């Protein structure tokens, strides 16, 4: 387990970034105050979120031994965390894309579109809940900790925030301040929290062991990989702050570059996470 779980590494990080971006975009649409032009550009740009979800699902199916039977994964909806994750994740992506089509083709009333927006938001939370509970297996002590769902939310706020800021730049949104600088502020706070989560995890690992596995020995490159991860994340944030912190507008190209750095950093962190797999017993 570890880097050979690359499909899940890509899936979880991309999906969480899509979620975080969607939260910010929904906030921008619901809070009002956007001009007609800004609103329509943002709505159009949100296609990027649904493309990300599509790509994420392609990677997730690469994890399956029999992807053609993938639909069986929803059979235990309500009972198995993975079924919940897949049902809510598909509903999130499906409804989000449906709403994008409604807006692009001018179908449905404004109320109907708001209704779909709220439903999509609810599904994004269900998706996050399913994804988090999947990893909280009582028999996997390195994953079964509140640090796991916390890390997922922080990825959404950091990477997803960068995606949102790029979409806001595309939509030429420079005010109000909550939209212009909100994502970068929240991502900065999330990055500090991510440092704390990593410190807490590295302090907890030596205490986790079975008769034959020692968590601290599972990822011998823990420190250099985390250092590389934070180097990339701080580089992304530094660039992003430099462009948007002083009231300058973020260029879309700079935003895309920040997104790439942040997602790469989070993928390295997720690779370490999968590398820490062990059970309370023989694996």
């Amino acid at each position, binding site marked *: 387990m570890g880097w050979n779980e690359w499909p899940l590494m890509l899936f979880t990080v991309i999906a969480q970034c899509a979620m975080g971006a969607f939260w910010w975009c929904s906030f921008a649409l619901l809070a009002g105050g956007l001009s007609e032009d800004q609103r329509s550009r943002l709505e159009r740009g949100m296609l990027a979120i649904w493309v990300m979800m599509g790509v994420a699902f392609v990677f997730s199916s690469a994890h399956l031994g029999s992807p053609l039977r993938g639909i069986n994964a929803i059979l235990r909806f309500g009972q198995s965390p993975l079924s919940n994750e897949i049902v809510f994740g598909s509903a999130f992506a499906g409804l989000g894309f449906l709403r994008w089509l409604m807006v692009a083709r001018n179908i449905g009333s404004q109320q109907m579109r708001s209704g779909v927006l709220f439903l999509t938001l609810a599904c994004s939370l269900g998706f996050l809940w399913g994804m988090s509970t*999947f990893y909280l*297996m009582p028999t996997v002590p390195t994953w079964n900790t509140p640090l796991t769902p916390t890390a997922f939310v922080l990825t959404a706020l950091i990477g997803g925030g960068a995606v949102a800021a790029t979409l806001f730049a595309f939509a030429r949104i420079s005010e109000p301040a909550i939209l212009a600088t909100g994502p970068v502020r929240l991502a900065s706070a999330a990055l500090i929290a991510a440092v704390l989560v990593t410190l807490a995890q590295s302090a907890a690992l030596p205490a986790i062991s079975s008769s034959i596995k020692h968590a601290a020995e599972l990822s011998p490159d823990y420190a250099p990989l985390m250092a590389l991860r934070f180097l990339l994340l701080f580089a992304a944030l530094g660039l992003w702050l430099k462009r948007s912190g002083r009231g300058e507008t973020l260029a879309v190209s700079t935003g895309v570059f920040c997104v790439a750095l942040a997602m790469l950093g989070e993928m390295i962190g997720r690779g370490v996470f999968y590398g820490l797999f062990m*059970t309370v017993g023989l694996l």
Partner: protein
Amino acid sequence: MAKQYGFYIDSAKCTGCKTCQLACKDYKDLQVDVNFRRVYEYAGGSWQAEGNTWRNNVFAYYLSIACNHCADPACTKVCPSGAMHKRSEDGLVVVNEDVCIGCKSCAMACPYGAPQYDPRKGHMTKCDGCYERLANDLNPVCVDACPLRALEFGPIDELRAKYGALAAVAPLPDAKYTTPSIVIKPNPKARPAGDKTGFLANPKEVSHGVE
């Protein structure tokens, strides 16, 4: 209570010969890195100087483990398709290979390494307690193959009445996690579950796809 079958594992008798593992592999036609039954060798201890002589407290013993057909299985809980299920008639935990999508969640959750991914088939496979042999009043093939008669199979309440209730010694996890349907007769040198003084002496022999 519904019927629950289980294994009796005599770790005092077991010599680690792996006939059980090979008989299973042959009968189930498994490829090299899939082993429905695995023999774990747990070893440790040290030598201490005592004047001009050395005294040892070293230990090494074997545990032959397949699927424990747990009363509270971790694998079935995480299965998204229901392919991994517990049979109501005999308590055996079996994977329906026509439904399984090969997501490997069960292999992550099981602390005994029972569900194993078969890359040739594209889905999970595991010990099914040889239920088709049971229907013909035969033992699982591993049990009949053991030259030491260190394995038995039967209703777990009968095995417990005969041999006691011990279901965990190192390196097995505490029985509280999944309530395994096994009874172990410990080796005289056996260490309790949770012991940290030993190590797995044969990791390559028992490794499979998930790690």
